[in-house]
């Protein structure tokens, strides 16, 4: 059941993105930024937690999930460190993904060369 809801919710997030690409003047980069900010917002108003409960990875894997993780990190940071947590919380909770992307990207640049399509 988790698999089905992951597939369905994740797919819907992507469909919304596709409609935005094809029917508005938003560029892919702007859509990514929009998704993260919307994720932060949804998490702030408490809407993302139920979405995660239902959609599992379908809600955490799209970049809105990244936004939620940032917001959640801030909440946790404030609980643990108070005011400083506002600054440290977001990046702490997302550090694994960002660091992995940086390190693997650097490794990839040593191994691979871009190719003609």
């Amino acid at each position, binding site marked *: 059941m988790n698999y089905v809801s992951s597939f369905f919710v994740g797919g819907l997030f992507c469909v919304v993105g596709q409609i935005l*690409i*094809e029917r508005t003047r938003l560029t*892919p980069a702007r859509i990514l930024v929009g998704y993260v900010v919307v994720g932060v917002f949804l998490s702030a108003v408490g809407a993302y937690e139920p979405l995660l409960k239902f959609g599992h990875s379908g809600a955490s894997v799209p970049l809105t999930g990244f936004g939620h993780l940032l917001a959640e990190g801030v909440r946790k940071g404030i609980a643990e460190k108070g005011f400083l947590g506002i600054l440290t919380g977001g990046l702490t909770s997302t550090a694994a993904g960002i660091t992995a992307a940086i390190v693997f990207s650097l490794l990839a640049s040593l191994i691979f*060369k*871009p*190719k*003609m*399509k």
Partner: protein
Amino acid sequence: MSRKKLGSGTLQLKTPPVILSSAAMVGKKEKQGPLGEYFDHWQDDEYCGESSFEKAESFLQKEAMKYAFQKAKISEKDLDLVFAGDLLNQCISSNYSLRDSGVQFFGLYGACSTMVEGLILSSMAIDGGFADRCAAVTSSHFCSSERQYRFPLEYGGFRPQSAQWTVTGAGCAVVASEGNGVKINRLCPGAIIDMKITDMANMGAAMAPAAALTLKRFFDDTATGPDDYDLILSGDLGKIGATLLVELLKTDHIYLGENYNDCGCMIFDPKRQDVHSGGSGCGCVASVLCGYILPQMMKKTWKKVLVMGTGALMSPTSIMQGESVPGIAHLVELSAQ
């Protein structure tokens, strides 16, 4: 008073210069296209054995020049002037392909219209008596253009239906004051037209108004019409731009018929090759003209031909600052001897 100007801006050459030879060097995708068999040579490797795409593009230019010079039985030293250009910042492909030649050189930027711009300037230099032999050279490379104008090659971006595919290829034409070959009779330099197209992925639409203006000016100045030519060729308007050009000219009561075609639509097969609206880039008109049209004209397949180089004069910087894309179109009238 200028003695060689007709009407509002067509230039009549007094002693028409001659294109002695031409050659085109292309990449793999172009070789697999409908005109593949006509190109002088091709490269399977997108890096052409070099370490970067920019160097590869220079290599393509050098090869195109080599084959064109061989055909004309001349060497670089026999050239008085070279007019070369490409799409990269500061025209590096051309600067580097000619840095060892010792030839007197003008670097041009006319976006994808550069090939025809080079032919116009070569003809003017020769007819003006300043040179006996000139060469016009241009190139473009899909990979070097993508990284400068768009996204990294491996980026999973979105390519809309109106997008065009930058041709990997280079062309070189040797123009001389006398000899056997294709004559350049009249020239019509273009003016910049901006119809406020802000979509960088719809260059055909940005260039079509400039093409319409140049073609109309030429027909008006010379009292000719589309039916007087065996072939009318635009550079890289692509499917969308070519349709728009036909529509725009209709409003001026100029009707382009079967004899009109666009290099961007000729070089790739839209059914087989996933190129959306067609080919683009300096290399598009250069390789089609130098590899296919000129050699066929020497065999008298066509006798009177109009070639129009079309350029979208934008940069990533201007687009990001919200500017629209201005277009330009230069035209030459060619005839087989």
